[in-house]
C-alpha cells in the first residue's frame, strides 16, 4: 500500500517537473519531447488509478500522435523561440 502511494507521489512530482520544463525551454523541440514525457507519465498515473482504458488512449494519442504533429510543425517553422 505504501509502495503504491510512493509511486503516485513520484509520478505527480514528475508531471509537475515536465510541465514546468515544457514552458521554460527555449528549444521548441525539447518542449515537444517534454510534453511527450508529460503524456507518458500521465498515462502511467491513469494506470495506477485503475483506468487502463484511458491509459491506452492517452499513451497512443498524447505521447504518440501529438508529439509527431508538434515535430512536423517545428520542421516546417523555426526551431528556436524568438523574442518578438
Amino acid at each position, binding site marked *: 500500500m505504501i509502495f503504491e502511494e510512493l509511486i503516485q507521489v513520484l509520478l505527480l512530482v514528475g508531471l509537475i517537473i515536465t510541465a514546468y520544463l515544457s514552458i521554460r525551454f527555449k528549444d521548441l523541440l525539447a518542449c515537444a519531447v517534454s510534453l511527450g514525457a508529460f503524456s507518458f507519465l500521465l498515462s502511467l498515473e491513469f494506470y495506477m488509478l485503475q483506468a*487502463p*482504458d484511458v*491509459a*491506452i*488512449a492517452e499513451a*497512443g*494519442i498524447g505521447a*504518440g*500522435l501529438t508529439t*509527431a*504533429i508538434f*515535430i*512536423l*510543425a517545428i*520542421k*516546417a*517553422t523555426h526551431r528556436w523561440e524568438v523574442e518578438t
Partner: protein
Amino acid sequence: MMSKIVRTQANILYPLILIFGFYIVAHGHLTPGGGFQGGAVIATGVALVAISFGYGKIKKWIKKTNLTAAEAVGLLSFIIAAFTGIGTSFFCNWLANSGLIFGDTVPYGPNPGYLNTAGLLPIMNLAVGIEVLGGLGVVVMYMLSAAKASEVK
C-alpha cells in the same frame, strides 16, 4: 527524411506497433481498450513511419485517398451493423448467443475470456478501429504534406 538510426528503428518497431494495435482492436470486448484505442495505436505506427521517412517516399506507400476511404468504410459498416437489428430495435445485439459467428454463449464463472462471443460488439470494434485509423492517419498525412510544402518555399 531523418537519420539512418531513426529509419532502422522505425523499420523494426513498425510491425510490432501494428500487431499490438490490431490485438487491442480484436480483443476489444475482452480486455481494456477497444476500437478507438487500437486505431490510435495503429495511427501512431503510421505517424512513426511517415516522420522517419519523409513525405517524398511515404506518399507512394500510403495514399491519402485510401485513408479517407478507410474512414468512410468504417463508418458505413458501423451504421449498417447497427441497422441489422432494426427488427427489434436500433443497435439490437441479435448475434449474441445465436450460434453464428461471434455467437457462442459465455460460460458461467471465472474464465480466460473467449474470443468467439459477444455478438455484434467485435464487429463494431473492428469498424471503429478502421475508421479511427483512417481519420488520424489522414490528419498526420495532411500535416506532413503541408510541412513539405512550406519547406520548399
